[in-house]
């Protein structure tokens, strides 16, 4: 911990960016966090605490939300497919594949973005406007190593776990609904016969992409907060919108890449 690290003099966000999702500033923020953490060291305990704050406390929302979402989709799917195919059992395996590679990770990511984006940007914006971040710098701390890095690492661990949990709940609840409400074979909705490595790769790519983007966008909006309580509210709103739009934008980009390259 050196008191006069060359990059600790300039507080990020002193210049106000127009877009919270501009890729280069986000990449710079990420790189600075990693560099500062390597130089100043980081606390494993902080990372664990953030995993608890992001992961454990979002688990209920994600599981609950995705269970309902799976049920809703089966209702729609059944009313769409039933007049055409009669028994909806035959769409089960294709259903499982589509949920796994497209819908479930994105909607779970969206719910995670809403929960984690709001919490992170509110927390960091409150630290910023109450000058706690400046105080930390004066105490020879480094905000990139002490604040940003643990949250990024915790996000990379917690968010994929949340997406896996959300996807599993959605699949289970759609199988359950197909079985009990539509008299289909519920097992067909858990049949992984059509799932290949490419689908799993798409799932993993999306999960880790969202896991990187959500905390980065939210932290960036938090660090950009200015002014009093109004600034915190503004930053929180921007943080939620930026992280959920980041999820949807990444979905489009990764979807195009996967479609044209794999």
């Amino acid at each position, binding site marked *: 911990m050196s008191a006069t690290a060359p990059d600790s003099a300039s507080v990020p966000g002193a210049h106000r960016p127009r877009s919270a999702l501009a890729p280069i500033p986000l990449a710079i923020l990420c790189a600075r966090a990693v560099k500062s953490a390597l130089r100043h060291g980081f606390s494993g305990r902080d990372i664990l605490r953030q995993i608890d704050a992001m992961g454990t406390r979002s688990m209920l929302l994600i599981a609950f939300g*995705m269970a309902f979402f799976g049920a809703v989709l089966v209702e729609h799917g059944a009313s769409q497919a039933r007049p055409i195919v009669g028994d909806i059992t035959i769409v089960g395996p294709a259903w499982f594949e589509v949920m796994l590679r497209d819908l479930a990770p994105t909607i779970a990511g969206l719910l995670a973005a809403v929960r984690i984006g709001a919490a992170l940007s509110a927390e960091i914006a409150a630290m910023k406007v109450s000058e706690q971040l400046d105080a930390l710098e004066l105490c020879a701390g480094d905000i990139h190593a002490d604040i940003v890095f643990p949250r990024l690492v915790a996000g990379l661990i917690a968010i994929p776990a949340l997406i896996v949990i959300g996807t599993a709940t959605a699949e289970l609840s759609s199988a359950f609904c197909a079985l009990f409400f539509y008299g289909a074979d519920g097992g067909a909705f858990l049949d992984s016969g059509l799932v290949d490595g490419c689908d799993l790769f798409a799932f993993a790519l999306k999960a880790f992409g969202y896991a990187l983007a959500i905390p980065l966008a939210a932290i960036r909006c938090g660090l950009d907060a200015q002014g009093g309580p109004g600034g915190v509210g503004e930053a929180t709103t921007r943080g939620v919108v930026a992280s959920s739009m980041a999820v949807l934008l990444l979905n489009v980009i990764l979807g195009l890449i996967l479609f044209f390259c794999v």
Partner: protein
Amino acid sequence: MVGASILRLPARAVLFVSGGLSRFTQEIGAMGLVLLRTARALPRLDPREVIRSIVGFGYDALLLSAVLGVFIGFILVLFSNLIVARFGVKSLFGWASGYAVLRELGPFVTALVMAGRIGARNAAELGVMRIGGQLEGLRGVGVDPFALLVAPRVIASALAVTVLGIVASAVAIAASIGFGWLISAIEPSTFLTSFEARIHPADLLAALVKLLAFGATISLVSTQTGLRAEGGARAVGQVAAKAVVVSAAVLTGLDWLITFVTEQVLPS
């Protein structure tokens, strides 16, 4: 030690459940109060304040909802592309995507993002007024703060979510025509034929019902959360975050409930 904590488990479970229930009842009660007081304030509404709120909530988020529509259209084409490839039902693509946009993805995804854009903003602004003592100040000079400041926001935010959802759904359908052409090689004319033949007014009505319900939810949840802010700058961030999270949880449950009812009442 372990035995004692196991013995304490039932008591803890009861406390957890009863605490959750009482918080839930509190939230519902607070939302009901906001609704009632808004209804009572309707005759005394300040039109200028309503218009200002509609511009702040709705007009400023118009671009966001259009971008959102493009993303929803893309999700949909990716999703249907696999189904089309598996079952070879190109001729039904227009119907399938129109149905999915109107009945599910359009209203639901828009509502989730607008819970952030409009709900968090509403809660934060009301929270700032609340902790700054502005609402009490108005009451002190004999003006009803609810009719002047809160009721226009309740109405404007509910209206804004509904209208923005319609915009996003329209853009999503246009985008799915475009992406469907690019990715799944489905001619726009094929799309439009099945869209026109099989999309009924019932589907539009179902979308509208969902959007109105989601708009009312976001507006009531964020208003009551914002009005209960206590503390300093940190509290403003907390109420904004809480408004989004509570809205998201309520939206997923409500989405299921409305789908269940509309599939019975408004079958396609």
